[in-house]
């Protein structure tokens, strides 16, 4: 039976793992390679590394971190942040990523999804969508949550899937870092709109939140960062609780 995935996300700034609340007030949370292998050992089904302050100046630092992290990581490894063109994606794959996540660049140039999928396969392309609720709709934001686009998140997810995205990484900006639970309404709307897997993100705070997003939100996977970095919840313990609640998870792992 296919299991629900628990994905640990490492937000990286200047080669260090950091965590903020609503994309602000960043705190240091450690070395990416060490964090990634620790999470995998603990039972994370997948690791996502997002370079949240990607600028041309620190691409090398970022690629070095990807290379070091990939060397001893044998679960799926996704890297995002600052990927603007096919060559950026190729460099990240070359450094050892299995999948890339694109966000702003995909909004600007949806054809980029097809370009990367055409060369590396759809399974390697994750389209990340940052959405915020406004007037009963979910609006897509880009540039690390700073710039509104006026686009509807559900329609954009459909379009991204049609362009060849392999998965959607859907972050609720309203919930990100708050540990107040996933936005199950948003996740379910997108999960029912597309046939590709949807990874729910933003708001994980307790095992109950994961149960809710898998049952009510129909998520295929759920991603969290802050609860894993600071030991508020142990992944193995979380999976045991999900298992007891009847959610299929990779357990024991």
């Amino acid at each position, binding site marked *: 039976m*296919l299991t629900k995935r628990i994905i640990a996300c490492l937000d990286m700034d200047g080669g260090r793992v950091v965590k903020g609340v609503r994309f602000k007030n960043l705190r240091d949370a450690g070395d990416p390679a060490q964090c990634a292998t620790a999470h995998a050992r603990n039972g994370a*089904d997948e690791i996502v590394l997002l370079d949240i302050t990607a600028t041309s100046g620190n691409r090398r630092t970022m690629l070095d971190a990807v290379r070091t992290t990939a060397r001893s990581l044998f*679960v*799926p490894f996704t890297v995002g942040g600052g990927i603007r063109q096919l060559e950026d994606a190729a460099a990240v794959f070359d450094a*050892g990523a299995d999948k890339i996540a694109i966000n702003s660049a995909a909004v600007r140039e949806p054809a980029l999804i097809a370009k990367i999928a055409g060369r590396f*396969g*759809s399974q*390697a392309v994750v389209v990340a969508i940052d959405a915020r609720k406004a007037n009963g709709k979910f609006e897509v934001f880009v540039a690390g949550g700073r710039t509104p686009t006026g686009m509807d998140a559900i329609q954009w997810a459909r379009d991204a899937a049609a362009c060849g995205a*392999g998965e959607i990484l859907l972050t609720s900006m309203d919930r990100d870092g708050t540990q107040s639970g996933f936005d199950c309404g948003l996740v379910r709307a997108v999960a029912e709109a597309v046939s590709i897997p949807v990874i729910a993100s933003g708001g994980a705070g307790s095992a109950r939140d994961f149960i809710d997003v898998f049952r009510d939100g129909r998520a295929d996977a759920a991603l969290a960062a802050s609860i894993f970095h600071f030991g508020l919840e142990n992944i193995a313990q979380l999976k045991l609780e999900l298992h007891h609640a009847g959610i299929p998870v990779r357990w024991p792992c």
Partner: protein
Amino acid sequence: MIAIVDYGAGNLNSVKKAFDFLGADVVVTDQPETLAAADKVVLPGVGHFSSLQALDRAGLRNALLQNAAAGKPFLGICLGMQWLFEGSEECPELAGAGIFPGKCRKFPSLVKSPHVGWNSLAVTEGSRLLRRIAQHSFVYYTHSFHAPVVAETTAASEYGLRFAGAVERGNIFGVQFHPEKSGDVGLSILKNFCEIESVRSKRC
């Protein structure tokens, strides 16, 4: 020496990295001569079945079939396993190697496609590739087409239907999942492959 076949289909880093981690002597190659000189061959691959056309163009198809016929251990991963069957609905005009019977098909519409994530294996006893792999071990899959369960199936998974997770005949092995991304279980399977003796080395 283990040769990983590079035919331009996706990213071979992960597979090479896993063999490096196990301490295996491994090269990535697109040269038929290197395949002929190798003790074992790994055919990885992700993406569309049509990308396997590159094997014909590069003269790799014959080299692969010769290696397999010579009893050298052969491991097809994901698309590389699908190639071992007769073909795929995904690209009907392209023939597979036909070593295992049947064609790869799309998943039924009642389930989301692609099938992405960790699924459990129903392991058949006696598999050499899956030696000491526990029943219901979890492995990582990512694919839209699946191979049928045949007599040579050594592990099956369920996703809308029962499909072949692993196949084995003589020294020819295929896995639909990604052992290089399946944690300790996957590394154990690759280690088993490293330890399988080729017919040639048995004679020595």
